[in-house]
């Protein structure tokens, strides 16, 4: 008979896992406990052993796909006779042995119908459906029934049964005939309102078909978060790439930031010839013999000095408590392009580091990021960020704030440009700075002062001493 193995929760409360590699294929013979597949969860890569002995009938999930716990991943034809068993095959034995110990539990149908949606497998029927209550009107069944025990609390035991069994039917607001009731939690409704999304037009993918935050985001930014369709379909030259991992985290962070903080970006072209000279001279100093000295180091130092002069740029908007949290320390984020995507690790307490220590910290941070070993803790708690777009050979951009921060400085490429010095046109090293800030906290004046000062320090690095 055909037996299906459902993706188990291998790590105490995990909800999904990715199929990394199949060790078997359809038609292969498998034994109990033979490794059939490697999966990756949020906690670990683990090998799953087969719970069945027989011949693989079907692999039900492709490699690279992320699946919810409980979804069947493989079907095996076994020698056992056909019987009504659950997909994990325990019902027969359990019932036979435990018949006189527990009431027989009616198993849910093995093949639960999925609710079709626009893309993907469709929505699994929820296993946490409310059980029908005795004598409860149909409308009240859908509404959350008042807990019977609570209703009975004032009455002394024994509880009068009728009082318990007749929860007050909650009044259901009668909508227009045929109108679909939209299920969404209050924060999601608020989000939809903020983003101008009509919830009636959104397909919910949450429990009971409710609309989640992700659904709302998907409705406003379909380009930023393409729908889940992992199979690479060749169709008129299109490719569909599953959104997961760093890409998914980046997309969520950027959408969250772009739609909560009103961004303003200002630009400044700066003559950094003196900065480049300073970099050269620093490299010759014994203190910097072991570390990498780059223009980024001085940009970082200039931003740290400026952030101390204008602490409001190093702060967080706390929506919940309606407060601005000004940080008197700087965890300096550096946006880094890594093989896994964009990540923003930060140098903790960068404001307290000497220049050689800052150089060493930046070097270590970048190296760790490039080798893909950055830990989550190293990416959290940032207060202000630098993004070095110059390494890609461009002059400027309008950077999006790292969520929770109020300023980000983009630092463009340094190149030789004609520049007017003392009335003469001379070649100078020039670069463009772009500063984005959260206009809820930072006004144009403050943002301009910060950008101007950073520029001034890069034109004449001695100012870092004067202001530092």
């Amino acid at each position, binding site marked *: 008979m055909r037996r299906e193995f459902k993706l188990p929760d291998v790590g*105490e409360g995990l909800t999904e896992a990715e199929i990394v590699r199949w060790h078997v294929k359809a038609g292969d013979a498998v034994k109990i406990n033979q490794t059939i597949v490697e999966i990756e969860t949020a906690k*670990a890569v683990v090998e799953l*052993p087969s719970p069945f002995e027989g011949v693989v009938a079907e692999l039900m999930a492709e490699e690279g796909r992320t699946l919810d716990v409980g979804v069947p991943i493989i079907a095996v034809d076994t020698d056992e006779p056909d019987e009504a068993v659950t997909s994990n095959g325990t019902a027969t*034995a359990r019932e036979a*042995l*435990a018949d006189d110990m527990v*009431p027989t*539990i009616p198993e849910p149908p093995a093949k639960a119908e999925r609710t079709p949606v626009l893309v993907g497998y469709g929505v699994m029927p929820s296993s946490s459906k409310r059980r029908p209550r005795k004598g409860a009107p149909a409308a009240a069944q859908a509404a959350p029934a008042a807990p019977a*025990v609570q209703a009975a609390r004032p009455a002394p*035991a024994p509880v009068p049964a009728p009082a318990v069994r007749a929860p007050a039917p909650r009044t259901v607001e009668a909508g227009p005939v045929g109108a679909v009731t939209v299920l969404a939690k209050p924060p999601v409704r608020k989000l939809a309102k903020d983003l101008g999304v009509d919830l009636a037009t959104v397909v919910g993918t949450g429990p009971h078909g409710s609309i989640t935050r992700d659904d709302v985001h998907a409705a406003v930014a379909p380009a930023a978060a393409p729908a889940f369709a992992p199979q690479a379909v060749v169709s008129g030259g299109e490719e569909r790439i599953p959104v997961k991992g760093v890409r998914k985290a980046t997309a969520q962070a950027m959408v969250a930031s772009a739609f909560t903080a009103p961004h303003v970006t200002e630009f400044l072209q700066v003559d950094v010839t003196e900065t480049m000279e300073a970099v050269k001279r620093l490299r010759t100093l014994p203190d910097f013999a072991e570390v990498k000295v780059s223009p980024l180091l001085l940009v970082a130092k200039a931003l740290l000095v400026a952030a101390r002069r204008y602490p409001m740029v190093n702060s967080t908007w706390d929506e919940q408590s309606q407060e601005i949290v000004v940080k008197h320390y700087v965890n300096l984020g550096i946006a880094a392009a890594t093989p896994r995507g964009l990540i923003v690790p930060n140098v903790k307490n960068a404001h307290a580091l000497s220049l050689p220590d800052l150089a060493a910290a930046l070097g270590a941070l970048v190296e760790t990021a490039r080798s893909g070993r950055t830990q989550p803790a190293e990416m959290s708690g940032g207060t202000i960020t630098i993004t070095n777009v110059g390494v890609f050979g461009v002059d400027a951009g309008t950077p999006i704030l790292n969520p929770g921060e109020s300023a980000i400085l983009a630092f463009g490429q340094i190149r030789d440009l004609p520049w007017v010095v003392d009335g003469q046109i001379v070649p100078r090293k020039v670069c463009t700075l772009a500063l984005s800030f959260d206009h809820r906290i930072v006004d144009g004046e403050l943002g301009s002062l910060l950008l101007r000062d950073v520029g001034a320090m890069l034109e004449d690095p001695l100012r870092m001493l004067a202001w530092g």
Partner: protein
Amino acid sequence: MTADVSRGAQSPPELVQLLTPEGERIEHPDYDIDLTAEELRGLYRDLVLVRRIDLEAVALQRQGELGLWASLLGQEAAQVGSGRALTDADMAFPTYREHGVAWCRKVDPVQLLGMFRGVNHGGWDPVEHNFHLYTIVIGSQTLHAVGYAMGIQRDGAESAAIAYFGDGATSQGDVNEAFIWASVFNAPVVFFCQNNQWAISEPLEKQTRIPLYRRAAGFGFPGVRVDGNDVLACLAVTRKALADARSGQGPSMIEAFTYRMGAHTTSDDPTRYRVADELESWKLKDPIERVKAYLAKSGIADQSYFDAIDAEADELGRDLRRRCLAMPDPQPMAMFDHVYAEPHALVAEEREQYAAYLNSFEEGAR
């Protein structure tokens, strides 16, 4: 690793060993053991069967049949050696990893699975087996063991208690308190520390700067380090410590120096924090291979014996799987049954309310 943690110590740590990793039987001036061929074969059988139980449980977790499992892989000798040193009257207080000790205390392996499957809170009668229920809280059982040992003292009984714990637990306040109480009251208890080098992801050097067994001296009782992968040495050392305890010589500590070959639990991924070299070097010290080599070289057992044990192990695994899957889910009302030994008015009221609640559903209680 030992070099790091022995900093500040005057002499390198000593290790009691009676059987080398290559299967050579060696002598030790303070510890000796004289076992019959049958007893030696029995230890081998224990080691293999216990490992098989553990492997089956890991597989069952990976198949979604257990919520969690803490593997003992690599620690079989420490557990079987110490477990076989116990007499029926001795009382053992385990952590959650002492599947090998449970085996020696004649606890049916399927009963170990109940808690990890979520169908009970520990499936055996601690009094029947003189094996306490698994303790999840780190180190608290050492205090229970000392309390029990003080009870033995007051009863004037001739038995001892043994407390199992790991290297990480030695950093717990409870364990240090237990040491002090045991020492001051001269309680008949053996502190059996399986130093498997890792407290989840924390290496030993984050727990201590001296070998753990030397801590005992500071509390005022003897400590000894034994090769935790040598079942003979673990048996000999634990026997002596228990005999000392029973004869009024007070507590002692045994540090079984071993290695956790697997993950901390099935929820853990050790490749994220330890290097493969370390694992490879400990594979060469496998607790089962050395006994097998010794039995074969000395003619105590041959291939047909080893094959028979392997077959027995596979049958044990199959049987364990079958009975695990057949374990009944508890009835919702059962949760009221073991709250109090005597009738209790509030529990009775809650039981009735809950029954009425369950009965309010169309398909009734389930």
